[in-house]
């Protein structure tokens, strides 16, 4: 049987006395969207940092299509097809939009120092091809963004920053994309556009999977097939949105005990 796209087992990480993540399992299939919700400090971002290789777990493992990637360095995990965005977007602000997306293709391009110096034509061709593909990728997300492709990323408004970060993540033709609170700082209209963007990307890229950390319940209700709830570093529920939202434990975690019983 084909192994799941991503399979995390028993992930545990403590910072001193604080248990950030405690024995969390996560399974993600091909072309699936999983949403992770939970109150602040529940361990959602920690989970992303463990999967993407920024933190190392004290216990547990992460497998990508059956291959153990728990201890791979972050850049190898990205090259293997697991990419992410950040809660506060981390674009390369002093570079242009095209540069940002071309850098996203780093693991799919080859030029090294010797090629750049000794075969400048080949290096140049590779870069120009990458730049053209980057332009197309940006255009597929937003015509407006495409018009500004040669301006600096640091000058973009918040919603466009998210969009560019998603474009950069998609540039490496990943197997899965992890979005950390993509709608934070967005108004309703931007969130609607984000939902539409994600749906369109899903349609264009069969096989691509998403894991999304989200607070905005409109997005959680609109997109994923499966929702996972974290609280104090533990998984307290998993299932479809309609079931999850009525669970007392989930309401308790989100609204506090009194509100849940009221």
């Amino acid at each position: 049987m084909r192994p799941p796209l991503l399979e995390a087992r028993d992930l545990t990480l403590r910072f001193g006395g604080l248990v950030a993540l405690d024995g969390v399992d996560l399974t993600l299939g091909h072309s699936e969207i999983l949403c992770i919700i939970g109150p602040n400090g529940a361990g959602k971002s920690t989970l992303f940092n463990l999967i993407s290789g920024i933190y190392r777990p004290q216990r547990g493992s992460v497998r990508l299509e059956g291959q153990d990637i728990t201890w791979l360095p972050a850049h190898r995990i990205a090259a293997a097809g697991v990419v992410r965005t950040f809660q506060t977007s981390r674009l390369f602000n002093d570079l242009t939009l095209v540069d940002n997306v071309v850098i996203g293709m780093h693991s799919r391009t080859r030029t090294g120092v010797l090629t750049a110096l000794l075969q400048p034509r080949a290096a140049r061709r590779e870069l120009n091809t990458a730049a053209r593909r980057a332009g197309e990728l940006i255009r597929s997300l937003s015509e407006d963004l495409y018009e500004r492709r040669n301006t600096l990323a640091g000058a973009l408004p918040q919603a466009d920053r998210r969009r560019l970060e998603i474009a950069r993540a998609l540039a490496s033709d990943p197997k899965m994309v992890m979005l950390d609170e993509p709608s934070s700082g967005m108004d309703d209209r931007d969130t609607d556009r984000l939902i539409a963007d994600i749906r369109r990307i899903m349609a264009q890229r069969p096989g691509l999977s998403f894991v999304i950390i989200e607070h905005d319940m409109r997005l959680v209700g609109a997109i994923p097939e499966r929702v996972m709830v974290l609280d104090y570093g533990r998984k307290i529920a998993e299932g479809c949105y309609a079931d999850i939202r009525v669970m007392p434990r989930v309401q308790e975690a989100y609204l506090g005990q009194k509100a849940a019983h009221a």
Partner: protein
Amino acid sequence: MHGVDITAGPMARRQTGGVVQSVAIVAGLEIGGAALLRTFLLSDATWVVVGLLAVFGAAFAALQIRPRLEEHIAVAFREMRLFALLLGCGIVLIYPFLMQGSSYALHLLITAQLYAVLALALNFQLGSANIPNFATAASYGIGAYSSALLAIHFGISVWLTLPVAAVVATVFGFALGFPAMRTRDTYLALVTIAFGIVIHQLLNNFTWTGGPNGLAGIPAPSILGHSFNSPIILLGFRLPSQANFYYLAAALVALSIVCARLLHHSRVGLAWNALRSDELAARCQGINVVWYKMLAFGVDAFLAAFAGSIYAFYVSYIAPDNFTFLVSVTIMTMVIVGGMDNTFGVIAGAFLLILLPEKLRIFDDYRLLFVGVVVILFLLLRPQGLFPQRPRNYGDH
């Protein structure tokens, strides 16, 4: 929105009919710049030097106040790239003939060019990747000593020692990069300072490096029987022997510029820029941050060693004190003042910081103070450096 649009604006407005204007801008700036530099080099009067500095400062003030001006110039140079290149090469080639046979002026130009190479070398690290390295002078020295030792003791051809010295320095560069990668920021800077001091002390204490007395009697190179110690006589013109090294240094600067541009416009340059901008995000885009940092150390050392070799053959005598920590700091200042990650800016920074102290000798004890004040004033005027980094241009528009 137009305020932040960097490339599209002026390009769109001046589609055609700007050729004459562009040629005029390019020719005016290149010839005017060369003429100003010539006056600066040949003048002994302090008021001329200070006056030229004032002109220079006013030009940058104008650029700072009217960013459009800068944009027009950039567009003109981009449209007339070939013309600008040929004119620039022509000026560099005939420049020694305009020096009225002054070997002092040529000496200054050689020194400035060698430092331009050093600054370009460091720019790969400091400018592209924002990795502080206070050991460029060490690589410079390793290059100089390697070439000198090979030429003196083994009689190896000068031209052959150049690549060998570069490889030796690159190995040392990687050797420095390896432990340095376990640290970052301030600590990384400290590791490189320590490396620079260690190399200086080793050169000072080994007997086979001549100790504090250094190495003397380094042979001069020759091409087709023409020794670099003899003057160039061409079409009735007689250039002092320094002109040989002027052309050699100019060739090295040209080589460095080509390397800088090729790397900047490649996947490698982008990766360096990415880790300068945000190291964590760079890692998550699949960039092997450790490798690219070490690579920056290696490339820096490689180019610096070339400059060192040519310096050794030029002065024919080297000592450890030519390669001190202070030299590294000067090179760093050149990159910062000239403009991080801007090839032309870095060269301008090197020329400014070499020529200025020489020409201000009249201020005597206050010379370095004056240089410091000028550098601070320029940085106040242009906080991003004289020529700030420009966005990349892909061939699609």
